């Protein structure tokens, strides 16, 4: 019977043991002995403790003193020195007096399960971290693209819709004028028809003019928001948004932004549209340049103490001095597919900021576009000869 029992105990799927409440082990099963490499003699008394991880031992000693059944998870050293996690469950056996005589316990290996759980948790953490990183990246990208698109679109979409609006009446004008000529050339001439088409030509001409009037109204001062704008910061933002584009066009960008540049009063987004427009024009003007560096220099400086100047210098194809003035006319373009609106709109924006936008040919190749805007006067200590708000307004009225 004892042999039979012993063989049953040895066959149980786990390490079986009995111990006294004071922690002295009486018996360990064959599986314990085989796992730990400790003999029955080695394991008995306090000997078993050397197989338990130091940090986990207290759980078992406390459990054995508790007088009730207990569970624990502890690391047990295998014969080869490797610690593996075991779940321990032990029940007390009480004597006739009701006092605990001994504990009978079973330990089973949960190392693989713990590893799986740990891996699952780590995987989940990694996944969520990756997801978060991914979504943050996507968000950042979307945010910068949105900023880019809203700025580019506002000029790009604006010019496209202006072009559309103007092209419709222009189309009518040309068609009507063509019809008119044919009617007059007919034999006999169709004078009544010609008169009607000429009348329509005039009307469509007015329609085109109305579009330009609306465009001016769009940039009239009352529509813009007014805030203090740091042109250095505004420039840096535009550059940051255009960095990829500049890299793609192999443009080398340098900045010479003045320290302590006074701020200007105006509409930040409109001013950035102008800066972006100048950047793009210059970048485009250098797209065919292959025999010299495509260099773009953004420079800000204080001019005459009362104006802030921003200049954009390129090494592009440049302009014929005669065309320099026409650059700022609506619909004048040197670009294939260009609307010829960018500089015209940019000049309107700068003029609405009581500023000036112009271009000069460089000594070397290329052109420098620049604008000046009065510095913000609120923070400006009025010095003899300094500009006051009143002066500024009168300048604006006179221009």
């Amino acid at each position, binding site marked *: 019977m004892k042999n039979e029992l012993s063989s049953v105990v040895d066959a149980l799927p786990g390490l079986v043991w009995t111990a006294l409440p004071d922690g002295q082990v009486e018996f360990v099963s064959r599986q314990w002995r085989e796992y730990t490499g400790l003999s029955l003699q080695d394991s008995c008394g306090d000997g078993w403790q050397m197989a338990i991880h130091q940090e986990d031992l207290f759980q078992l000693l406390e459990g054995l003193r508790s007088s009730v059944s207990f569970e624990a998870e502890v690391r047990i050293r295998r014969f080869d020195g490797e610690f593996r996690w075991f779940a321990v469950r032990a029940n007390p056996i009480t004597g006739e007096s009701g006092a605990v005589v001994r504990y009978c316990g079973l330990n089973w290996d949960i190392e693989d399960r713990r590893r799986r759980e740990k891996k699952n948790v780590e995987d989940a953490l990694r996944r969520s971290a990756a997801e978060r990183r991914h979504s943050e990246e996507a968000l950042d990208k979307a945010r910068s693209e949105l900023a880019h698109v809203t700025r580019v679109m506002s000029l790009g979409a604006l010019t496209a819709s202006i072009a559309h609006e103007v*092209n419709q*009446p222009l*189309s009518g004008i*040309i068609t009507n004028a*063509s*019809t008119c000529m044919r009617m007059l050339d007919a034999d006999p001439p169709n004078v009544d028809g010609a008169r009607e088409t000429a009348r*329509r030509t005039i009307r469509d001409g007015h329609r085109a003019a109305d579009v330009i009037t609306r465009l001016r109204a769009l940039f009239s001062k009352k529509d813009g928001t007014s805030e203090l704008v740091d042109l250095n910061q505004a420039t840096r933002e535009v550059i940051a948004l255009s960095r990829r584009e500049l890299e793609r066009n192999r443009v080398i960008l340098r900045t010479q932004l003045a320290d302590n540049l006074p701020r200007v009063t105006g509409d930040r987004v409109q001013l950035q549209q102008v800066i972006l427009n100048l950047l793009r024009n210059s970048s485009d003007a250098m797209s065919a340049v292959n025999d010299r560096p495509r260099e773009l220099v953004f420079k800000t400086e204080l001019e005459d103490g009362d104006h802030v100047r921003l200049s954009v210098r390129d090494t592009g194809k440049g302009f014929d001095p005669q065309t320099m003035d026409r650059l700022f006319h609506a619909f004048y373009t040197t670009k294939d*597919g260009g609307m010829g609106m960018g500089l015209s709109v940019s000049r309107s924006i700068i003029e609405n900021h009581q500023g000036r936008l112009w271009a000069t040919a460089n000594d070397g190749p290329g052109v420098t576009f620049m604008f000046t805007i009065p510095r913000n006067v609120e923070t400006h200590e009025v010095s003899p000869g300094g500009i006051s708000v009143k002066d500024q307004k009168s300048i604006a009225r006179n221009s």
Partner: protein
Amino acid sequence: MSTRPLISVVDDDESVRESLPDLLKEFGFDAQSFSSAEEFLASDSVSQTSCLLLDVAMPGMTGPDLQRELTIRRQEIPIVFITAHRDELVRPRLLAQGAVECLFKPFTETDLLAALNTALRV
């Protein structure tokens, strides 16, 4: 019944609808104009039309929508698109889908005549 080819103009812009038919008549064609693709489809001009001068962007059914609808109905009318959006990317796409030409407004009468001649030869 006239033997002159019928050119149908579909454009939401009134000044085009007003001016283009007169020029087309001066060219020697018959001309009709419609303010929308839907109006054209509902008319009895569909089967009579020798060439369609079709605006690209219109509220409701667009020019390309009408082009697809006509293909489905097996009405093989040569189409010359006219658009005020000067988008160089749109042109090759429209031509690839079977348009004869795509003219950007404002176009000259020479370009228009050339496109119509191509369309009517098809």
